[in-house]
C-alpha cells in the first residue's frame, strides 16, 4: 500500500462516510467475485450443491441468487 493510502486510512478511519463507503465497495467486490466464480463453476459442470458446499451456503440460496443469470 502506498504512503498516500496509509495516510488516508489513518486520518479517516473513524469517519463514517469513509468507513461505510469502504464496506459498500467491499460488498460490491465480494458480489462481483462470487458471480464470476459461480459462473465459472457452472461452466465447468459443477452442480448447485457442489457450489453451495464450497461457498458454505445452502443450495437453495445459491440457486435462487444465480439461476436467473442463465448459468
Amino acid at each position: 500500500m502506498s504512503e498516500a493510502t496509509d495516510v488516508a486510512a489513518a486520518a479517516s478511519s473513524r469517519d463514517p462516510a469513509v468507513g461505510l463507503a469502504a464496506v459498500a465497495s467491499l460488498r460490491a467486490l465480494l458480489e462481483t467475485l462470487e458471480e464470476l466464480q459461480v459462473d465459472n463453476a457452472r461452466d465447468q459442470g459443477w452442480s448447485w450443491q457442489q457450489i453451495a458446499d464450497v461457498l458454505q451456503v445452502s443450495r437453495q440460496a445459491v440457486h435462487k441468487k444465480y439461476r436467473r443469470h442463465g448459468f
Partner: protein
Amino acid sequence: MFERFTKSARAVVIGAQEEARHWHADAVGTEHLLHALLDASDPLVDAVLDGFDIDRDALRYDLDHVERGPRPPLDADALSTLGIDLDTVRRQVEDAFGPGALDRTRAGRGRGARGHIRFDRTTKKVLELTLREALRLRHRDLGPEHILLAMLHRETGAAHDLLTARGVELAAARQAVEELHRLADAS
C-alpha cells in the same frame, strides 16, 4: 420530440446518457447534459461561451464536483482505505477470466449501468426549453446552442447554477446566438 434536433444536438443528449451511466446515476441530470455539451465542442456553443470569456477547464472542474454524487459500486478509493488495491484484484481476475471480467459481472456494473436511463425533471425541462428557445428565435432546427440557452433558465438546476456562477447570462447569450446565426445565414 427529438425529430427537430440536429445531429449534433442528438449527440449531446446521447453523450449525457453515457455520462450519467458512467457515474452510475439513477437519471440524466443537467450536469450530465452540460458535460456532454462541453465535450461536443460545437462551434456555435464555443463562440457563445468565448463571448463570456468562459474557462472550460474551470467549468469542468465545477462539474466534476457536482457529479461526484453516487459512487461506482467498485470504488478504488474506498477499497484503498482497507488496504485493498482494486487494480491488483482486477489484474488477478483478468489473468484468470480475461479482460474486463470484473466489470462484466452484474454486480460490478451496478444499478445505473444497464439499460435506459431516464431523464430527471430538470433535464426534461431543458429539452422542453430547447424547443421554446428555438421557436423564440424562429430557428427551425434545434441545435446545441439552443440546449445551452435552455440551460440558462433558473428552473434547470445544476447546469444553470454552474453557468451563471461563471457569468453566462441568458439575454446576452440569446443575442449572441441570434447574431451568430445571422452571420452564418449571410455567408
